[in-house]
Each structure stands twice: as structure tokens, then as C-alpha cells.
């Protein structure tokens, strides 16, 4: 029988580590909050986690392609402010859906702008998307200088309390994303994506359209950020230009916890989505564990660092023994 190899396993199933963490987090959370798996608790948790889960999926695609997108939070904010100002609390459902469509277009456009600078002008992804994040966050603040506005309650209720067939809406959204990703992974585009992220030069020499692939990852990330913005707007029911700013770094953390390497070409999208859910449950655990408020930030950050360090530690110990 082949010897158990942690490296081999995680290479084949990049989401494995994320899954382990998630089960661990779920277990601890269940001990602290026994009704965790009741339908309403599950729904109220998942609907809060969903925006970050969607965002992490988009971020994962960019990172797989060898880039990074710091502007996603800005796009989330733009979408949120557009919906909150243009639809309004008294808006009709028709207007709501119209602006949902426009939001998606805005997301694609913002992503295309990132992609243009990174892929066609060959600028460094971190600094480019950092610069555009200022553009987008500024635009969001321009649209809605002070928190306010809103969307019709029917729309937010649809998001908050639909439980088709007894399962929270978030599960269906996650299932759809996973299904689409599974399909993309099996296409030629999927192979191209991994090869560009792995080594762009080698991919170019084997006739992979590197520039187009890189461009497309930013468009996908922009689109997912728009979906995430729509979700968070339906969750909160109101507008705030700063709503997305904290989400950018969380989405990157989720990707890394999810076993997708920041160097590109290694990992997948399922892991980062699990990573985002894990981060959500972690927040839950900390709020339920009766930790002194002053200690919350330190506790959360230490757990994240420990989670990030674990795979490295395992490898280090194994190498010492070998």
C-alpha cells in the first residue's frame, strides 16, 4: 500500500485542508451553539457568509491565473451604492431587476478595466488593482456620500428568507457556482487558466492565448464581485459606500486558507469557497465563545495565522523525520 502522504493528498485535493478546517470550525461552533444545524440558524448564517463566498470564488479564478485583484471590495461598494440609490426603498421589483442587470454590467466593465491594464498593458497586478480600488471606492463614495438609500423589502426578504426545499438559498447559489466551475475546469479554457497561472512564459510558448486568459480572469472576478455586491445589498437592505472595503483582504485570506496558492496555477475554486465559510464560522465562534471584546481581534487573527501556518508546519516536521 502506498504510504500516506500529506503533500500528495493536498496536491490532488487542494480543498482538503479547507474542508478539514471547516469541519473543525463547524464542530467547535456546534459545541458553543447547539442549534447550529437548525434550518433557521443555518440560513441566517449562510446568508451572511454568501457575499464573501461569491467574492472568494472570483478572487480564486484571478489568483489561479497568476494575478490578484485588490479592487473587488471597491466593485462590491459600487454595486451596493448603485442599487441603494437607483432602486430605493419604494422601488418596484421591475426596477430592482433592471438595476441588478446594470450592476452586473458595471462589474464586468470594472473587471475589464483591471484586465486591460494588467493583461494588455502588462502592469503589476497588485499595484494596478490597488490603484483601481481607489477609483472604484471613490466612485462608490461619489454615488452615495453618506450611508442610506435602500432596496424594496420584497427583494431583501427574497434573499433573506427563501428556503426552497428546506435548504437555505445560499446552498443553491454555492451549488451553481461549483457546477459552473466544474464545467469550466473540464474545458480547454480551464486547462489554459491553470497553465497561465503555473508558468505564463511556458504557456505562451505552447500557443496558449495568455493575454486573453489573464484579461478574462479579471472580468470573471469583476462579475463575481458584482454578484457579491448584489447579495450583500439584499442582505443589508441599504447602501453604504464602505461596505466592500473590508471584504477584499478577507477574500484573499479565504483563497489561501482554501488551499489555492497565491503564486498561481495551484488549487481550485471549491477550497476558497469553503475557506470563506470557515472564516464566517470563525467569527461566529469568537462571538459565541464569550471572549472579552478587547481580545476578539487578536484571537481571530491568531487563529488565521495558525491555520495558514499549519500546512507548512506539517511539511516541516515530516521533512525533519524523513
Amino acid at each position, binding site marked *: 500500500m502506498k504510504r500516506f502522504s500529506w503533500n500528495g493528498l493536498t496536491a490532488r485535493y487542494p480543498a482538503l485542508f479547507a474542508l478539514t478546517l471547516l469541519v473543525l470550525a463547524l464542530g467547535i461552533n456546534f459545541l458553543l451553539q447547539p442549534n447550529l444545524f437548525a434550518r433557521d440558524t443555518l440560513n441566517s448564517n449562510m446568508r451572511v457568509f454568501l457575499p464573501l463566498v461569491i467574492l472568494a470564488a472570483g478572487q480564486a479564478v484571478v489568483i489561479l491565473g497568476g494575478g490578484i485583484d485588490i479592487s473587488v471590495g471597491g466593485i462590491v461598494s459600487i454595486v451596493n451604492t448603485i442599487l441603494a440609490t437607483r432602486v430605493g426603498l419604494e422601488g418596484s421589483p421591475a426596477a430592482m431587476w433592471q438595476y441588478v442587470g446594470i450592476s452586473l454590467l458595471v462589474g464586468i466593465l470594472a473587471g475589464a478595466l483591471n484586465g486591460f491594464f494588467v493583461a494588455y498593458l502588462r502592469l*503589476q497586478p497588485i499595484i494596478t488593482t490597488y490603484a483601481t480600488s481607489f477609483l472604484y471606492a471613490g466612485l462608490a463614495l461619489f454615488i452615495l456620500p453618506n450611508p442610506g438609500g435602500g432596496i424594496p423589502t420584497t427583494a431583501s426578504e427574497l434573499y433573506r428568507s427563501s428556503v426552497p426545499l428546506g435548504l437555505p438559498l445560499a446552498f443553491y447559489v454555492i451549488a451553481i457556482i461549483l457546477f459552473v466551475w466544474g464545467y469550466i475546469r473540464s474545458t480547454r479554457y480551464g486547462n489554459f487558466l491553470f497553465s497561465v497561472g503555473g508558468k505564463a512564459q511556458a504557456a505562451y510558448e505552447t500557443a496558449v492565448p495568455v493575454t486573453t486568459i489573464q484579461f478574462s480572469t479579471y472580468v470573471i472576478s469583476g462579475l463575481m464581485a458584482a454578484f457579491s455586491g448584489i447579495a450583500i445589498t439584499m442582505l443589508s437592505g441599504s447602501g453604504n459606500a464602505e461596505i466592500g472595503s473590508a471584504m477584499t483582504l478577507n477574500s484573499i485570506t479565504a483563497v489561501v486558507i482554501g488551499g489555492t496558492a497565491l503564486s498561481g496555477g495551484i488549487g481550485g475554486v471549491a477550497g476558497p469557497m469553503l475557506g470563506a465559510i470557515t472564516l464566517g464560522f470563525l467569527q461566529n465562534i469568537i462571538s459565541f465563545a464569550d471572549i472579552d471584546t478587547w481580545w476578539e481581534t487578536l484571537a481571530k487573527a491568531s487563529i488565521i495565522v495558525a491555520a495558514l501556518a499549519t500546512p507548512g508546519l506539517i511539511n516541516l516536521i515530516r521533512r525533519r523525520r524523513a
Partner: protein
Amino acid sequence: MKRFTISPPMAALLLAIVLFLLSGLLPNSYGSDVNIAIAQATNILRLAVFLGVIAAGQTLVVISGFEGIDLSAGSVVTLTAIVTYVYVNGADEKVFVALLLSLAVGALIGFMNGIGITFLKISPFVMTLGMSGVVTGIVIILNHGNVSGKVAPIMTRVIARPISADIPIPGAIVIWIIFGILMWLLLERTSYGKYLFAIGVNRVTAKLSGVNVTGMNLLTYALAGALAGFGGFLLVGNTGVVLISLGQPYLFPSIAAVAVGGTLLSGGKGSYWGSMAGAILLTLMTSLLTTMQMPEAVRRMVLGATLLLLISIYGRQRALRQ
């Protein structure tokens, strides 16, 4: 015909000078009064010192390559500012020890970043991001709502006030010039600097040429932490008060200053002069936009667009086809 080229640090500096001269045309600016113009220029330079010093560590880490970046710089600045503030407590004789303490605290945090990055193989972006969370957590606990302390009079006199009644140059600028020369010596005239560029260009060849890459990496992150610590020490000497969010606003500008100064974010190429010029340009732009009474939204958009423009001019990476 020789193609006209201009080095990024010169370009950033020239742009800063042109912008400053143009700003004289603004209705509420210095107009034709040379004395006020000089006073304003001095003031902007003084403000740029803090960003410049914090960007020094960032420059080292970025030059070291391997996606090197230090996202913990902002929170380290806050931590050492608070440590200095509390420890000194108004006593002049404790200032020197406080300076050493700031450097040591910063170096320790940077060293831990280095350990995570070199031994546990966590990517610098995520490791320093996680560390930033941990340090912020420590700051929150230390701060506990309020800290009691006081800046020593000698710090204010040396850092914030002019060096003498006849020479209206604030001490901070003198400190910065000496600091800049030391940084230049470190990068260009020591074996540390030579090895730093070597590992930034190519880790494998550096290792094969006998450079201790692991040691260099640890040293660089520790040094970057110490320099951020020094930034915190200077900053609190200037502001005289501590806030929980004192350092964070300097984090991304410090990366932007490095990029604007022509240091490649992929490593191996750059200078501290560039970061100094970048810090001056960014500080000038922020203060100009404030003078023009632009709303926060416009300020952010202009900063983002300028950053994008500057990196589009000289931040482009090598084409795949060569």
C-alpha cells in the same frame, strides 16, 4: 538617435515640482509670495518624511523579490507609536531607550514574518496580512480604550520644530536626509545590499553563488519591521498623540510610494531615492487635493488615476514574446 529616457525617481520628483508650481495658481494657495511658498513646500516635505521612512522597509522587502511585500507595516507603526508614547511618558531621558525599544519591537514582528515566509512557506502577502491582524489585536488590548502617556518634549523639539530660529527647516527633514544617505549606503555600498538585489533578481542563482538566501530573507523582514518601528517612533514625535488607527493610513501609500519610485514589485530593481520621491509626490497630491477642498470621493479617484497613470508609464513588465 538616443531615445529620451528619464529615471522613475526623477520623473516622480519633477512631477512633484511641476504640481507644486501649478498649485500656486489655486485661489487659496501661496500666490506670488515666495516666503509662503517655501513654507508650504517645507511643510509638505515634513509630512512626507513619515511616509518616506515607513516606505523604507517596504522598499527593502519589495526589492528582495519573491512577491515580497509587508502589509504589517501600518500596524507596526501604530504599535511602536503606542509603546513609545506609554514608555516615554514625558521623560526626556527615556527617549533613547524608547527608540531602541521601537526598533526591537518592529524587528521582532518582522522576524516572525520572516520565519513564516521562509520556513513555513506562507506567501509574504498573506503572512504579513495575518501578522497585521495579530499586531492590531495587540494594539487593541494594549490600548484598552485609552492609553495614558506623553511624548517627551525633546522628541517634539527634534522632530516637529525647526532646527533653529534662523533655519526654518524642521528636524524631521534633516533626519530624513541622513536616513536617506544611510539607506543608500546600505543598498549600494554593503554586501547586504548586493545580496538583496541578487536574491531579488533570482533566488536560485543567488543561492548557487553562495548567498545565504534564508538568512537574507529573515534579515530583510526583520529590518523592514525595525524601520516601520522607527517610523512609528518618528510619527508619534510629530503628532504628540496616539490613535488606534495612527499607522494604517500609511500602509498602502507606502507600497504606492515604492511603486511610483520605480522599484519593481517583482523585485530585484529599485532604489530608496525612488521611494523618497514617491513619498513626496503622494504627500503633495494628498495635501493639494485637500487644499482644493475636493470631497473624499474625488480625492480617492484622482489618487487612483494618478497612480495608474504613473505605473502605466514605467511600471510595465517584460513582454512574453522576446
